[in-house]
C-alpha cells in the first residue's frame, strides 16, 4: 500500500498544481469544481481500486464499439452525413458556448469524461493516462473515441444547429 499511497499523492499534487496554475480560472467556480472532482478524486479512487484487484470486466471493451452503430448503415456508411459546423472559431470565446460545452462534458459517463479531460485538457499522452488508470491503450482509445463522438453530437444538437 505504501507505493499506491505515494502514487496517489503524486497524482493529486500534479493535478492540483496543473489546475491551480491555470490563469483565469477563478471566475468559473463550477467548472473548476467539476474538473477537480473528475480529475482528482476519481483517479485516486481508481488507483486505490487497482492496487487491490484486477480490472473489472467492464474495463475491457470488445474490439467493436457498437455505441454509435445507429449513425451508420450496415456497410458502415453514414445514415445521415455530418454537416460542417459553421464558424466554430467564433464560438470559442463566448460564455454561452462554454456553458453548452460544459453541459455536454458533464453529460458524458464519468470515466469517459475523466479520460477525455486528462487527454485534451491536461494534454497527457494516452500512455500516461493508461498507466495512471491501469487500463490498456486500446481501451483508452475506445473511450476517447466515444467521448469525441458524443461531444460532437451533443454540440451539433445544442449549439451549432440550435
Amino acid at each position: 500500500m505504501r507505493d499506491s499511497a505515494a502514487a496517489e499523492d503524486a497524482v493529486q499534487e500534479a493535478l492540483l498544481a496543473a489546475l491551480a496554475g491555470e490563469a483565469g480560472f477563478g471566475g468559473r467556480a463550477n467548472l473548476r469544481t467539476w474538473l477537480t472532482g473528475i480529475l482528482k478524486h476519481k483517479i485516486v479512487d481508481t488507483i486505490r481500486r487497482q492496487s487491490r484487484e484486477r480490472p473489472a470486466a467492464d474495463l475491457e471493451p470488445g474490439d467493436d464499439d457498437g455505441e454509435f452503430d445507429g449513425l451508420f448503415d450496415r456497410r458502415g456508411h453514414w445514415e445521415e452525413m455530418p454537416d460542417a459546423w459553421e464558424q466554430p472559431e467564433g464560438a470559442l470565446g463566448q460564455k454561452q458556448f462554454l456553458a453548452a460545452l460544459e453541459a455536454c462534458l458533464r453529460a458524458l459517463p464519468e470515466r469517459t469524461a475523466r479520460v477525455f479531460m486528462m487527454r485534451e485538457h491536461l494534454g497527457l499522452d494516452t500512455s500516461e493516462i493508461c498507466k495512471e488508470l491501469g487500463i490498456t491503450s486500446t481501451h483508452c482509445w475506445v473511450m476517447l473515441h466515444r467521448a469525441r463522438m458524443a461531444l460532437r453530437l451533443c454540440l451539433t444538437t445544442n449549439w451549432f444547429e440550435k
Partner: protein
Amino acid sequence: MLLSCKETTRLLSQGEDRKLGFGERVALRVHLALCDGCRNVRAQFHFLRSAVKDLSRDGDGKEHS
C-alpha cells in the same frame, strides 16, 4: 483497403492520440478525399481539442464581439 465511415471516425479519433501507421494514413487519406461527412468530423474533432484546451483560459469577461 477501403475504409467505411465508421472505421474512419475511429481512425480519425486515434490519429489524435497516437501516430497512425503508414497503411492507416493512406487508407484514411483516400477515404477523406471522397467523403465530405468524414472530413467534417475530422474538423470537429480538431475543434473539440482547441475548445476543451480553452475551457480554463476563457473565463468570464473575455468575449469575442
